[in-house]
């Protein structure tokens, strides 16, 4: 097991994501943020663990519309991220991307994708570049369990396998596609089992444990950097919230969310840390610090002016 300091880093990273999402939900409910907002509450261990295993000074992640967690884990500060959700000029993309399509390549976050599965071939393409520029860079494509049934994902996996590309396919399996359970999507819900027929390793991992994710991704990164090709990782997790802010979740069986709350990554890691002798005061102090950071970032972003239409026609072409 990693040392306590590392676990405390994971805790802070996951809390930053969780508290960000809680504030984002509030901003959406209040109407300060408009449009569809897809929160990742409960899936934080995946982003924290994976980004800890990557070298984001050269590697890159290609996540989905459910990408606030990835963006924060890549190191984007909460302030420009809130500002982006709020459509502020100070947003990380000046408001052009919004919650579901923002990008921050300068942090190794190569863009959310709001087309299910479309990021997978793009990540494979980045890996293709890495093969040719000798940079040793690795690309990580993240998408949901439902995306596994999209043609582009299939093509990307086969393409990466046959060309031995340094790309990691990371499935965030929360067992739902929007409002529909995985049983309506696939007959076999062991998604990692698809890997072997493409000729790459596949494994199911605990998506609620940042250390487990970190370990699995580190190993995959090692393989990729040494030219051994792609890997498919299926991280089992759960959404503690709706598909989008406002989703009443009538489709979720009674008790499912309650059970999930008992096993979600932050609760679990807190227990581990307590068991390791970390004092509750220290843990609470950490929470307060992050809460303050989030509150301050949100306040600051809210105060900023909306994106200025004057430059709206710029940057369509080079």
């Amino acid at each position, binding site marked *: 097991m990693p040392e306590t300091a590392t676990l405390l880093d994971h805790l802070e990273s996951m809390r930053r994501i969780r508290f960000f999402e809680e504030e984002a939900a509030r901003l959406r409910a209040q109407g300060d943020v408009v449009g569809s907002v897809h929160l990742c509450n409960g899936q934080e261990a995946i982003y924290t663990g994976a980004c800890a295993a990557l070298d984001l000074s050269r590697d890159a992640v290609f996540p989905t519309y459910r990408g606030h967690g990835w963006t924060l884990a890549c190191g984007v500060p909460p302030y420009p991220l809130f500002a982006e959700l709020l459509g502020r000029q100070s947003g990380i993309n000046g408001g052009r*991307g919004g919650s579901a399509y923002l990008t921050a390549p300068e942090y190794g976050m190569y863009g959310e994708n709001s087309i299910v599965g479309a990021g997978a071939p793009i990540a494979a393409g980045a890996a293709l570049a890495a093969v040719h520029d000798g940079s040793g860079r690795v690309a990580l494509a993240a998408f949901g369990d439902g995306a596994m049934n999209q043609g582009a994902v299939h093509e990307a996996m086969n393409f990466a396998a046959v060309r031995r590309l340094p790309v990691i396919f990371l499935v965030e399996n929360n067992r739902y596609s929007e409002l529909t359970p995985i049983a309506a999507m696939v007959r076999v819900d062991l998604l990692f089992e698809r890997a072997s027929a493409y000729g790459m390793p596949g494994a199911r991992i605990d998506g609620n444990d940042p250390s487990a994710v970190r370990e699995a991704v580190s190993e995959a990164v090692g393989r990729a950097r040494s030219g051994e090709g792609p890997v498919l990782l299926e991280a089992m997790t759960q959404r503690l919230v709706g598909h989008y802010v406002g989703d009443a979740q009538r489709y979720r069986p009674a008790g499912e969310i309650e059970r999930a709350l008992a096993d979600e990554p932050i609760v679990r890691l807190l227990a581990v840390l307590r068991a390791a002798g970390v004092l509750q005061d220290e843990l609470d102090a950490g929470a307060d610090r992050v809460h303050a950071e989030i509150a301050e970032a949100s306040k600051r972003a809210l105060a900023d002016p909306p994106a200025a239409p004057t430059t709206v026609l710029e940057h369509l072409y080079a």
Partner: protein
Amino acid sequence: MPEQTRRLSYAEAVNAALRRALEERPETLLFGEDVAAPGGVFGVTKGLRTQFGDRVFDTPISESAILGGAIGAAMFGRRPIAEIMWADFSLVALDQLVNQAANVRYVSRGLLGAPITVRTQQGSAPGACAQHSQSLEAFFAHVPGLRVCMPATHQDAYDLLLSAIWSDDPVIVIENRTLYHAGRQEVRLGGDVPPVGGAAVRRPGSDVTVLTWGAVQQEVLAAAERLSVQGIEAEVLDARWIRPLDLEAVLGSLARTGRLVVVHEAHTIGGVGGEVVAAVAEAGVPLRSAPIRVGAPPVRIPAAPSLAQAVIPSADVIADALTRSVHGTAVPAGRG
């Protein structure tokens, strides 16, 4: 089904049309992502799974399978109604509509057909990203073998969808999510299913003809009312059907007004507005001022409302275009 009138939202009107089709046409099937058990991400298909069981089902996130599945089922005698949640998503599977559905009847000389109805919705809405905001009717309208309509009123949400389902051709019905829950209106249910095609006059006028389609029609009507105060009377035509396009209705109106403005939410360059203006020009109709197209400028659709508002046609921009058209500040469109 006997005629009756009820107050419905646009979404409820669509739902009523689907229910009627499922009741009256046992060969219909309804499927797509989240349409069955959840009743649709916009609640449009609520209650249909419960009433019709397996004929209404949820699919994987596989648009090629959804559209190809509809085509194959249609070839085998079913009448599938497939939903593509956003028109933007059709681009992962456009092959099935253009290279497959559109060819079935032609190549088999009518031995086979692909009577599928593809329900989708499109356009900009506050906060929507560039991958969830496009107006793509031009893609479908360019394809011989496809039919395309864009219901902009509650009544048309009901009528056009039924026309599409009753049609023996593949029809793309493009709805608009900003209309689904924006208030209730009287909707005539039952009665004969209207045939495909035909524009509708939404506002009579004598000074300028405005052809429009889709949700932007509301901006057009607002602009028309505003100009009416200034004594400019715009005739607002709702194309409703993009393919076939009711050119006769446009020419008929132009014979009275002599001025043309086409308004759509889609990008102007390469948009269907070009087809309309070109067809009118080819017809050689004498115009008193140059025709004007109003649509989105060449740019992606940004998410921030302050940015999107700057590119989606507004009543202001439309009113300005109408004024220019009528006051002919535009160079006249040629002398004999």
